[in-house]
């Protein structure tokens, strides 16, 4: 499934989506950045509550398909610009991480 379809089907808010046609496969939940880099697979959806600039770098380098910020966490405008420039898709969910993940079941 494409990131743009996932966002729509799950009702996630789109903070930025420079590469909405990217395919999502699987998901990983984590806030410790090195765990994410060590364990998250390429092309997965990464669910986190971290919202600093390093999240964008990790998402880009670990090559995940999108970041989903859980618990209503958001990014400031400057970071959204950075993410857009780096081609990182960022979605936002009002739900906690677990409930956010259950929305993905059967879709990615």
């Amino acid at each position, binding site marked *: 499934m494409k990131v743009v379809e996932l966002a729509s089907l799950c009702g996630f808010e789109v903070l930025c989506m420079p590469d909405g046609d990217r395919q999502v496969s699987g998901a990983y939940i984590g*806030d*410790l*950045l*090195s*765990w994410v*880099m*060590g364990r998250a697979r*390429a092309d997965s959806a990464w669910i986190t509550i*971290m919202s*600093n*600039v*390093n*999240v964008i*770098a*990790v998402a*880009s*380098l*670990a*090559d995940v398909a999108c970041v989903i910020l859980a618990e209503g966490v958001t990014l400031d405008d400057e970071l959204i610009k950075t993410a857009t420039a*780096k081609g990182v898709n960022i979605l936002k969910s009002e739900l906690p991480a677990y409930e956010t993940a259950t929305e993905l079941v059967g879709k990615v």
Partner: protein
Amino acid sequence: MSEPLVFHFDINGDDFSTAGQASVQIKNNLRQLGLSPEIIRRVSIAMYEGEINMVIHANGGTADVKVYEDCVEIILADNGPGIKDIDMAMKEGYSTASDSTRSLGFGAGMGLPNMKRYTDDMKIDSTVGVGTTVTMKINIA
């Protein structure tokens, strides 16, 4: 064997927000060279972890990336405090990072283990009070 392509970076030691710039640049360079996404991912993550380590522990340093026909070599060098116990530092979950570093999502004690995980060869030369050089190789062919 032909001469490698060499990329050199100075890693700024006082700023987490700029950490990763060298890794992102390398990612773009390797993409232009046509390397596979999986190789690029492994090089990028190993290098980013190294960059972050130099910011957390060593007040910065240098990164040199050499692209050969059959492998990518990453050499990270700093003049930081050195690693007292390399065996401990290699253990998953062991970290000497500060609480403020941890609040940013770093300091999980996974940096060096990740660098080893994603590379085919890794060597650490460290002298307490002098500095640390980490040399990593990722085979492409």
